[in-house]
């Protein structure tokens, strides 16, 4: 067992787990954050995408021993908490409006890949958006509405 301390969506957490446990399992099983999904467990699908120190990673490929002292952002951290309850961030809102989610399995990962794309200054450019989500597979939407949603959010918040 290893004690690992890190930040999740701004809050400090501490877990006592085997060092090779996947970040995905720590989030879902140990911390109860079930937003990140396991699609393939081998880096192909991106359903488990989270942001680690400002970079997108597949949390199924990250052992928790490498997360000590680092900053993790998951889909649970996107909505802003206000006095009137949580308010969706502009990407989540755009996915709702554009029909960017169907079954929803890919959505948390898509949102985090898109979040990082926008945070890095990405704009409403089709090719750039498709490159940013190239590591995220969707079996339902055909991608067009996802790309539209990201472009919409990028235009709202240039």
């Amino acid at each position, binding site marked *: 067992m290893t004690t690992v301390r890190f930040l999740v969506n701004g809050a400090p957490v501490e877990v006592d787990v*085997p060092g*090779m446990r996947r970040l995905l399992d720590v989030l879902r099983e140990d911390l109860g954050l079930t937003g990140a999904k396991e699609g393939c467990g081998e880096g192909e699908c991106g359903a488990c995408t989270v942001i680690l120190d400002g970079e997108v990673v597949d949390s199924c*490929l990250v052992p928790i021993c490498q997360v000590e002292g680092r900053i993790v952002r998951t889909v649970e951290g996107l909505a802003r908490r206000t006095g009137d309850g949580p308010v969706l961030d502009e990407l989540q809102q755009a996915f709702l409006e554009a029909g960017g989610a169907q079954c929803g399995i890919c959505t948390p990962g898509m949102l985090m890949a898109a979040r990082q794309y926008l945070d890095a200054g990405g704009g409403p450019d089709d090719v750039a958006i498709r490159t940013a989500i190239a590591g995220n597979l969707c079996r339902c939407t055909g991608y067009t509405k996802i790309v539209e949603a990201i472009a919409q959010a990028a235009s709202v918040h240039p």
Partner: protein
Amino acid sequence: MPAEPPVASPATLADAYALIQREPHTPIAGGTDLMVRITGELGSIPERIVDLARLDDLRGISLERSAVAIGALSSYTDIRRSAICREHLPALVEAAATVGAAQIQNRGTLGGNIANASPAGDTLPVLIAMDAAIVVGSVRGERTIPADDFWTGYRTTALAPDELILRIRVPLVPGRETRFRKVGTRRAQAISKVVAAVSWRDHGRSSGWTQVRVAYGSMAPTPIRVRQVEAILEGAHPTPETADKAAAMLAATLQPIDDVRSTADYRRMVAARVLHRILRDAGGW
């Protein structure tokens, strides 16, 4: 949940050397190959793991007198962002940009690609074509292995069980040009069907090319140099006739296999076509 073998995270290289000399440990760098192995779906599950992430000696990209030194823990993203690599090793930057997608590029390392020893490893032909040297270390000290001698058989390397890859030295050769091509199923996240790197020195109009290197991946149990084709190009100019001869020799020499990703015939034809294109672009015809 996948297996969770014990893992040690040494803070210094000396500690890491001592640990893996006492008992064999499988290193983990970015984990993009190793974390798939602990699911048990791809080969055996390692018994003990040593985490390299704290070994800062294995980080950084620097310009030495006549070489670029790339720390084994440099990720594909590090390589793509490095001003040194962009200026001096554009073919390696290009190769890094074709690996996986952003999630893989942010985590996967050059040292991991080398040690993993997949015949389809995308950077490996580039390292061979650029005469790169792999610097490895253990309790016994450091030694340097030319890239061309590093991959000894299908997924085997010249690395001893208690050695780590420390860095990769790529010599800077005046006037050297290197070209990289990858053919896969789609642009992102695709394992190569054919991957090629060709380099040469061009001394101007009168004399032909020298120090020609033709390296391929996904065509044999290891990444390979194709010396018969190099011999045709050495001292020659990239004319249509030379290109035809070189491509025909390549097709006659390579003996790829049929597998789930491609057929041998397809690989051989595409490999020859890729070389022909590189020579055509170089010749400007």
